[in-house]
């Protein structure tokens, strides 16, 4: 049975170096490029006809647009309008990363959202951006985030550290949630796939059981791919709401 960790290995396809920094074009980079190309093709070709009554593809593009626009409107409000392209790009990038990772593509097949450095970089952009927006809108008043209105002064000793920890753990929870979900899901798929092969090689009937399980898990993983993209985006929206409206 193949090592279930092997699928996460980065394989440089075109080795590149700038100074001492390695910027090789890897399977991960290839998937990122593939996903942004697919997103762009999907969203531009589908609305090319600008039909009044949309076809299937145009409907799907409109569903994505209205889904994210609605999410932003409900969670952030009208002020969230200008962050729409960012939130939308974030959602599509994570979603396509998750979904394309489920497809066994030869050579470049890879799930870039299963790498903590990728998810952490995105979470950090959200965190730093949201914090900057908060300070830009409220100035030093934004520090009230860490001490709610109406709480007795004496509780500050406990409340402020708690609020600080919860605030600064946001990027970590955001990054780890996505990375861990993707990693674990793919490991389970790989292990189950290994069972199907090793058991099915000896006896057909015992191979059927892990195969059925694998099929079910695959469906579940597609669900998780959608759900985690949604969770990542909606948490970003909620953080944005906090920065703009302060609780």
């Amino acid at each position, binding site marked *: 049975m193949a090592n279930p*960790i092997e699928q*996460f*290995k*980065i394989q*440089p396809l075109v080795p*590149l170096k700038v100074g001492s*920094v*390695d*910027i*090789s*074009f*890897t399977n*991960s*980079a290839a998937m*990122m*490029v593939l*996903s*942004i190309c697919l*997103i*762009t093709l999907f*969203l*531009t070709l589908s*609305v090319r006809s*600008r*039909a*009044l009554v*949309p076809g299937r593809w*145009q409907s799907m*593009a*409109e569903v994505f*647009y*209205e889904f994210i626009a609605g999410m932003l409107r409900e969670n952030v409000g009208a002020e969230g309008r200008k962050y*729409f*392209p*960012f939130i*939308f*790009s974030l959602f*599509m*990038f994570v979603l396509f990363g998750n979904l394309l990772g489920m497809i066994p593509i030869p050579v470049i097949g890879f799930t*870039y959202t*299963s*790498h*903590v*450095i*990728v998810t952490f*970089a*995105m979470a950090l952009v959200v965190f730093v951006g949201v914090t900057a927006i908060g300070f830009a809108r409220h100035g030093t008043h934004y520090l009230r985030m860490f001490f709610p209105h109406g709480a007795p002064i004496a509780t500050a000793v406990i409340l402020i550290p708690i609020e600080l920890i919860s605030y600064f753990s946001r990027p970590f929870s955001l990054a780890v949630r996505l*990375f861990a979900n993707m*990693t674990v899901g793919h490991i389970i798929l790989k292990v189950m796939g290994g069972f199907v092969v090793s058991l099915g090689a000896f006896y057909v009937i015992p191979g059927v059981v892990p195969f059925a399980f694998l099929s079910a898990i695959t469906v579940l993983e597609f669900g998780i791919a959608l759900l985690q993209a949604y969770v990542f985006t909606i948490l970003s929206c909620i953080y944005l709401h906090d920065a703009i409206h302060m609780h």
Partner: protein
Amino acid sequence: MPQFDPAFFAPQLFWLVLTFITLYFVMSTVALPKIGAVLDERQRKIDDNLDKAAQLKAEAEAAVAAYEKALAESRAHAQSVIKEASDRLAAEAETRNRELAARLADQVKAGEARIAEAKDKALANVRDVALDVAGATIARLVGSPADTARLEAAVAAALKEHGK
């Protein structure tokens, strides 16, 4: 796990930044405005059509009101025309009846006069016939012609006796 190998951090971060910025740029300048325009266009069309439908409805209602008004007016007009005509006809019938009655009365009067005249004539004839009959009877019975003066007196007396 390869995820925690720092050797792969730099290339992944580089390509992440590159692809994500590209995606953001494409989304914000091309894809999203395009989809947004399609959605706005549709919303505008729907609003337009709703406005037009409301306008047509108002027009239809106005037309119905105008039609009902015209109907009521023409009905009233018809009533008045009918009333006028029936009045006129009644008056005409009245005069004609009156004329007819007058003519009939004249005719009755003329008829009566003719009847009286005929009666007088008939009575005169009766006298002549009586004279002839009496003269002839006397001539047969007596054998000689009767005295005309006495005969006339006798006939006149007989006629008078019968009240004629």
